[in-house]
């Protein structure tokens, strides 16, 4: 047991003496947490809106005013012709163009079909869909006004049924995207740092040659590995702590659930990641290779973790694959516990699966480390 202590002591000394790496391990991730949580949002805002008004009537003006009043749209300018509007869109100067046809008001008042042309830059398909929804909402609301105005004249004996839908948003009333992203980005950073550090660590000793010296000593594999990984485990927990503090102070992220639960779960999760890093380390000869392979897996895991895009949106085969992705569970747990106050029983399935992962990855890592070749 004491032997593990000597390794831990050495590792810490080396980590803290490496003046170049310290800011990278601590300052950079937290800086990123702050910057990137502000950047990561799928909200569609500041939609650049332009219009072509062929009708130039009070109706068309009223409609356009509605768009001006909307917080989602920035009415930038108008275009006299379609060609100019297209050109602006090609240049990337506008996102949406509304085209009010000639006789718009007349057609509407005569109860003939009144059309509106809308052109949306759909390169970002998801955003385009959302923009369309907003546009439709505004037009519908405008339509309702017109209808009630115009229909006062005509009689309607039968009243339409009216289903009132009340949207309620729980746990995040203001639909604050940061609340959603911060726990996720924290997960991302803790994972990346601990994975890269652990993957490169043993390879570095291989590259320098000190690993041979270690292998000649009577030290047990498990002692060596635990001693090596423990400092990174501690660093991971430290990052989590500072990250949580920042999340609270800067982003006002609610912490509804039990901190103890968060830490308990994180401690097992970090063990999984360290095991993975170590496993990678055993099969590579250079730091570059280790880094690459770690990066390869991290990118795939993160993309498939539900951090940025929901897992339910993925095809079935992809969803099945995510069952084997430890990051997915961590993201779920962090969001559930932090934002909804889920308790241990609620996250039991994730907890068990992660525990199994921890045992498997570390077991594989220890087994694949050979003191004798």
């Amino acid at each position: 047991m004491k032997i593990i202590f000597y390794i831990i002591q050495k590792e810490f000394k080396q980590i803290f003496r490496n003046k170049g790496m310290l800011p990278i391990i601590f300052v950079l991730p937290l800086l990123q947490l702050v910057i990137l949580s502000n950047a990561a949002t799928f909200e569609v805002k500041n939609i650049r809106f332009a219009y072509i008004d062929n009708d130039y009537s009070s109706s068309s003006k009223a409609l356009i005013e509605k768009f001006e009043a909307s917080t989602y749209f920035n009415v930038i300018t108008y275009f006299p012709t379609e060609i100019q509007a297209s050109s602006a869109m090609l240049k990337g100067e506008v996102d949406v163009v509304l085209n009010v046809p000639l006789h718009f008001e007349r057609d509407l008042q005569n109860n003939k079909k009144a059309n509106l042309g809308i052109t949306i830059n759909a390169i970002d398909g998801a955003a385009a869909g959302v923009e369309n929804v907003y546009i439709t909402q505004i037009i519908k609301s405008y339509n309702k006004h017109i209808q009630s105005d115009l229909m006062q004249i005509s009689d309607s004996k039968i009243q339409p049924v009216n289903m009132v839908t009340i949207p309620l948003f729980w746990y995040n009333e203001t639909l604050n995207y940061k609340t959603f992203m911060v726990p996720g980005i924290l997960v991302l950073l803790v994972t990346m740092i601990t994975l890269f550090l652990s993957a490169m660590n043993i390879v570095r000793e291989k590259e320098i040659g000190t690993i041979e010296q270690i292998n000649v000593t009577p030290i047990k594999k498990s002692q060596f590995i635990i001693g090596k990984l423990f400092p990174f485990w501690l660093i991971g927990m430290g990052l989590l702590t500072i990250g949580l503090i920042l999340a609270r102070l800067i982003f006002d992220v609610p912490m509804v659930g039990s901190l103890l639960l968060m830490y308990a779960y994180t401690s097992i999760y970090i063990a999984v990641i360290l095991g993975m890093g170590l496993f990678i380390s055993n099969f590579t000869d250079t730091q570059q290779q280790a880094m690459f392979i770690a990066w390869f897996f991290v990118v795939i895991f993160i993309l498939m973790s539900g951090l940025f895009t929901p897992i339910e949106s993925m095809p079935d085969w992809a969803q099945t694959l995510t069952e084997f992705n430890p990051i997915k569970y961590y993201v779920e747990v962090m969001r559930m516990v932090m934002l909804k106050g889920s308790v241990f029983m609620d996250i039991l399935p994730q907890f068990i699966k992660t525990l199994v992962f921890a045992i498997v990855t570390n077991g594989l890592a220890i087994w694949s480390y050979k003191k004798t070749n």
Partner: protein
Amino acid sequence: MKRFKGFVTKEFYHIFRDRRSLFILFGMPIVQVLLFGFAITNEINKVDIAILDHSKDATTKEIINKISASRYFSINQHIDREANIEAVFKKGKVRAVLNFEKDFNKNLIKEHQATIQIITDATDPNSASTISNYVNSILQNYQQEQNKAIAINYVITPQPRMVYNPELKSVYMFVPGVMTIILMLVSAMMTSISITREKELGTMEILLVSPLKPFQVIIGKVFPYIFLSIINAVVIVLLSIFIFKMPVQGSLLLLGLVSVLFIISALALGILISTISASQQTAMMISLMGLMLPVILLSGFIFPISSMPLPLQIISHVIPAKWFIIILKGIMLKGVGLQFIWKETLILLGMTIFFIGLSVRRYKIRLE
């Protein structure tokens, strides 16, 4: 010149003998494009929702059927009391609960009004609003059908046209981004690691003492990565065209030229990083944490820049990747020629020259 050729050949050997790294270098872009094309999307699909029906009459049943029939939703369970909503959200089993009030049908007929609450788990606000909107649309459609008997007049029909990507395929947006990231990864990170490794191993000094001029050493080191990056770019474009049917609308030549420009800027950044890193580890971490992550998040690759707070929008202006992605989308998806993207190209050119100048200066300083 012959010495230079020999040096470049050695660099190529280094790279091609490192099978594992090579595998990642070529495999990663392919995997990423496939993932983005097939798995990564914000569209909602078969979302689990729960129903809390206080009325259980014919109307609510009809509405529930309509929702169930939609491909967007999958009714996971029925709950009896409002108290259960909390529990079902906390377990993370459903994303939304539809709450039909008591005497729904009766109220609809007598009072001409009945209420449905669409309660969404808004921890993911994006999904929540999308789900809310979709449910609302389904309900609106149902309502319109019911009201068909009454002629609703004075209807405005919006006719939306989705341009550049009519099928709203998410892969169209991601492919330019993936290309950018991969080029940046290969060019900047690999270059910085390669140069730093020579420093660490001590062989850099040997190179500098040789008859090769310093700039030849750098160009020689960097040259294979230009080659690799171009191959990667080609592979990505081919994949998009053949697997995702995403055509390149504009000029391939222009695409190629601008890509080379971007690659050079990334290489210059890589050299710059190598001048401030003492070890491979540092170079790698700076490339990944200091370069890659901001690029992914601030370049408009996944998250729209216009939605970011102003300070971040300003920062994104100095990231070459942002401009490159705009140019890529222009050429690939809009089919524009230089006349529409000359501004962005000029900016990219300026940045490239700046980075080259900066890295050359720093490199000279390091030598002394």
